[in-house]
């Protein structure tokens, strides 16, 4: 939910410029770092997310894995995705745990696709937040999102997702999930610092038997404000389908830019055209024609 303490950078479907106002919060870019190599799958972050955001815990769905339920929900924003797979070198099995939630893209597809003024805002600090009081439930955001994150609340017909605890961050606190993590797998700070930490950890992994270790901060969406350390950064798909090169879908970009402007120009010229015709040629007056 939109936070008055944070400076706004972009507003969905907003005609005209966005003025960023004064705010008590400094506006450096924030970032959550998820080190998948130290996640033990304890789900403390899932519980903390529900508690802070005021959603009730619910029955889990057991499907022979260590995953709480098959998918995230409108009131369950944060899910440790679990994947048991054979190692690439054939030396046995490996368990991959990936904390899945909104990535808070620098170039957010949800915001680009949204037609409702003010329903999605991006703050100067990089958080992308949904403002349900302005949401109309069209779910264009789902279409624009390369990570398949936004979820519809079927009773209110509005869409929800992880807010990166914008309310906590606006008050100078870290997100609830980060606060609860017992292994130090989650970190929160400036984007710069988190990138530095992530690179340091990747180098450590590379030197210790994981030559493909690296940082996931996809450039296709301008970088994200949630980044991963992966022990195999060359194949992010194996972490329960983390996209290799996520971008805003090309059709969404075409629709929101060239098609929209062609359409607008077409409509304006259409109206101007018929009115000019009226001035130039005038009406078809049957009586005058008959006289001629």
């Amino acid at each position, binding site marked *: 939910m939109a936070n008055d303490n944070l400076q706004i950078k972009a507003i969905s479907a907003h*005609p005209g410029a966005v003025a960023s106002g004064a705010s008590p919060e400094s506006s450096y870019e924030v970032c959550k770092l998820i080190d998948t190599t130290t996640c033990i799958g304890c789900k403390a972050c899932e519980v903390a997310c529900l508690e802070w955001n005021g959603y009730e815990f619910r029955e889990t769905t057991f499907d022979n894995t260590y995953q709480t339920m098959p998918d995230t929900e409108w009131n369950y924003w944060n899910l440790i995705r679990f994947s048991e797979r054979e190692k690439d070198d054939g030396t046995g099995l490996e368990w991959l745990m990936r904390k899945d939630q909104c990535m808070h893209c620098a170039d957010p597809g949800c915001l680009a696709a949204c037609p409702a003024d003010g329903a999605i805002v991006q703050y100067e600090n990089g958080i992308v937040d949904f403002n349900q009081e302005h949401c109309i439930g069209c779910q264009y955001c*789902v279409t624009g999102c390369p990570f398949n994150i936004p979820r519809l609340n079927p009773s209110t017909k509005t869409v929800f997702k992880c807010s990166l605890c914008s309310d906590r961050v606006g008050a100078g606190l870290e997100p609830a999930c980060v606060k609860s993590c017992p292994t130090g797998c989650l970190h929160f700070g400036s984007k710069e610092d988190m990138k530095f930490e992530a690179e340091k950890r990747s180098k450590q992994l590379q030197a210790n038997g994981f030559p493909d270790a690296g940082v996931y901060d996809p450039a296709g969406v301008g970088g994200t404000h949630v980044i991963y350390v992966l022990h195999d950064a060359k194949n992010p798909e194996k972490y329960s389908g983390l996209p290799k090169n996520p971008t805003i879908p090309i059709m969404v970009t075409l629709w929101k830019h060239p098609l929209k402007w062609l359409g607008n120009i077409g409509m304006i010229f259409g109206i101007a055209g018929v009115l000019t015709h009226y001035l130039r040629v005038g009406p*078809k007056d049957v009586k005058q024609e008959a006289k001629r």
Partner: protein
Amino acid sequence: MSTNTTALTEGSVTASGEIVRYSYKERLCHWTNGVTYFFCLCTGLAFYSPYLYWLSAVGGGPVSARMLHPWIGVFFYLAVVWMHTMWKQQMTSIPEDQQWKDKIKDYVENNDSALPPQGRFNAGQKLFYWVMYYGALSLLITGILMWFPEKWRSLHWLMTIVIPLHAVAALFTIGAFIIHLYMGILMVTGGLSGITTGTVSKEWAQHHHRLWYDKIKQGK
């Protein structure tokens, strides 16, 4: 002069010498199409451009506009089907239509004496009809997919194509609609009363739809 306009049959001549262009049923159908299309146009444009978001007021605000747009869209489509049952035959091409299309420049410049005689609907009206007919069909198919995308989440990728297609189909109908409004209200004087009160003058019928007029005269 108070004629009961519901009793008029198309092609008949009133006591005052006016010709009945559209029956009550046809006019009712036309305006059902018109009102439902106009509602979807305004609410749709609201979601098309941030600069037109205020048009969602037509639907009672953004949230109810999003709720009503698909429902009224379905009613629009049903109205199109209704119209199709009445006008399908009359909207098919006749040889004179091509001659008319070849002389479109004369029509646009009001050089009407150079035009071949036309039936009850001229080639331009027929073209408008088919743009709206196929436009409505495309809008219905894409629109139903966009109505509740949560029901087919796995088709998530398909929506990136469906939504722009819905906009393209709408833009085609809007282009046709601008011309339709202009011609009906401003350009073809005397035409508007045909679709409101149902009648046109003898001269009007003779001038714009000679083949239709001749048929009525012969039938008399």
